[in-house]
């Protein structure tokens, strides 16, 4: 084991190779390793975030469904109430209309009866006059007895 310049050669080669390794070989390898580490970390984080998001979304959907259900039942309730109201209103209107028709008919009947009474009264007056004329058998001055005849007619 004699020492010779191989020591120097090996030392120089060692430094050169180590320097080359540091400058050229090392950075891209470590960069790729770091990048993959980051990618994995990001992926894991995204997965856990997605899980949370999903849970939140599910909860929100449940809430919305509850609200929708409630609203729907409210609407149905309202519709029922409105229907009842409409039916009631229609009933009321029909009753009022009926009442109106009845009262109109009654008024008509009364009016006709009055008219008939009026006509009857006039006829009775003339019949009475004719009768009286016949009884008296003489012509009576109509103008002179008008007053008398009118009061007679109104007494009927």
């Amino acid at each position: 084991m004699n020492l010779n310049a191989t020591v120097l050669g090996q030392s120089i080669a060692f430094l050169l190779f180590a320097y080359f390794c540091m400058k050229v070989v090392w950075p891209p390898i470590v960069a790729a390793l770091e990048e993959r580490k980051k990618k994995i970390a990001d992926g894991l984080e995204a997965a856990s975030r997605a899980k949370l998001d999903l849970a939140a979304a599910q909860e929100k959907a449940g809430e919305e469904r509850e609200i929708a259900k409630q609203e729907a039942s409210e609407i149905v309730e309202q519709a029922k109430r409105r229907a009842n109201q409409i039916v009631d209103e229609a009933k009321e209107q029909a009753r009022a209309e009926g009442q109106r028709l009845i009262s109109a008919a009654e008024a008509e009947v009364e009016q006709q009866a009055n008219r008939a009474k009026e006509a009857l009264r006039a006829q009775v007056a003339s019949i009475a006059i004719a009768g009286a004329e016949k009884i008296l058998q003489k012509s009576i001055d109509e103008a002179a007895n008008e007053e008398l005849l009118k009061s007679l007619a109104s007494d009927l």
Partner: protein
Amino acid sequence: MAESNGDLLYESGTEYVSHHLGFLTFGKLDGHWGFAHSAEEAAAMGFWAINVDTMLISFMLALGFMGFYYFISRKMTSDVPGLAQNMVEMIVEFVIESVDGAFHAKNKFIAPLALTVFSWVFLMNAMDLVPVDWIPLSAQLIAGDSHLYFKAVPTTDINITLGFATTVFLMVIYYSLKVKGPMGFANDFLMHPFPKWYLAPLNLLLELPGFFAKPVSLALRLYGNMFAGEVIFLVIALLGWYQLPLHFAWAVFHILVITLQAYLFMMLTIVYLNQAHAVDH
């Protein structure tokens, strides 16, 4: 394996083993540049010589794994990774985890450095699992020289492990000076473990050997383990047919050893550099 070529090349098992432990050294001998033909010649070349075999394999492995990492890093995707990218990511994340656990300051150089150390040392150790004759025989065939020395496992060369350890040691000194300043760095030696000024010489006596022992132990631990493993592989290779189950068992055990040694080397590198960055202790 010894039997297949022992008749021609090696007269004894000792020669077989020692030949496999020799280096292909290129240097200046008697005024001429050339390859050493024996361990004695290699030693005679002195310091200014190069172990061509271990350097070559070390370089090829480094180019191989660094090229592979480079290729993968160009087409990294943060989506679903392919098989190769997955493998690289596993190694890188393992290194990052180790650095995060043992290094508490901020320094962008430490993790890539640790990755380089771990991958490189692991691959160099793994050359141990290639059957001991394959690479030397291939080298001998290519060179056309049946006596060529060729050592296939770079980490069984003290020069290679010491090269790593020295670089780490120099980085420890550099970062210590940079982070703590010269005074703070000196303080580590003078005021620890006893924070009394009159005990400074004793502290220096305790701390200094420990400090210089770091690179030596770092280099020798790896070298020793791998060298011992290699020698046992060589001895097993001398056993003829009996080598097959033994070789298998030792190789399986060695998978553990090479990984552990690579891991240890990386961890100690990180720990030493962390100490260089630790200001308060």
